[in-house]
């Protein structure tokens, strides 16, 4: 089982991988919260203070627990409309 992680817009640019908006990480690496997911993926990059986070498409904060099968997304303030 895996956790699917997505980065959108400038957050994807920040992660330095312009092509991929989605990556799967395996579960058994001490990842318990959304912040752990960020730390695992970000390779030392600090989480921007204005980042927005969704788990399974609902807004959450960094302390939210994640589990196998979850979809975790990081993105900047929204600018639609």
């Amino acid at each position: 089982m895996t956790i699917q992680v997505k980065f959108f817009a400038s957050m994807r640019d920040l992660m330095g991988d312009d092509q991929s908006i989605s990556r799967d990480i395996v579960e058994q690496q001490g990842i318990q919260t959304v912040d752990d997911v960020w730390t695992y993926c970000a390779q030392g990059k600090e989480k921007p203070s204005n980042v927005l986070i969704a788990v399974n498409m609902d807004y959450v904060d960094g302390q939210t627990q994640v589990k196998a099968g979850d979809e975790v997304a990081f993105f900047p303030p929204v600018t639609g409309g």
Partner: protein
Amino acid sequence: MHIAINSEPFDPWQVLNDYQNEKSELQGKYGATAVFVGTMRDFNEGDDVSEMFLEHYPGMTEHHLENICSQATGEHQLLDSLVVHRVGVIQPNDPIVLVAVWTAHRKQAFEACREIMEDLKSKAPFWKKEQLNDGQNRWVGKNTKGY
């Protein structure tokens, strides 16, 4: 209630005409229709903008637009609501977003239309990247305040 994400240009007046004509059950029941259309300008924050790319989060975007319209429907006794939003490459003067609501009385229509639009602006996962006339491009940092 209808939510649509369009990757092709749309004509808001044509969309409204078609949508309303299909809703025969609404005829004679609504006294008020409030509509907002957001259109791409050829300038922003002092710079000329030649093109825009609009990204979204497929699934989450629709989910939140449905939540927003459902909440407004309950709060303002909406008879119907419609949201259409463009994604992809957008040219100046292209419509970006259409919000329309139908109610018995005008107070509810005005308030619901504006609230849906503000909620969309602050919660629906869309992001704009502007292509400037000088060849540079930039992500729009945040939306302007609506109140």
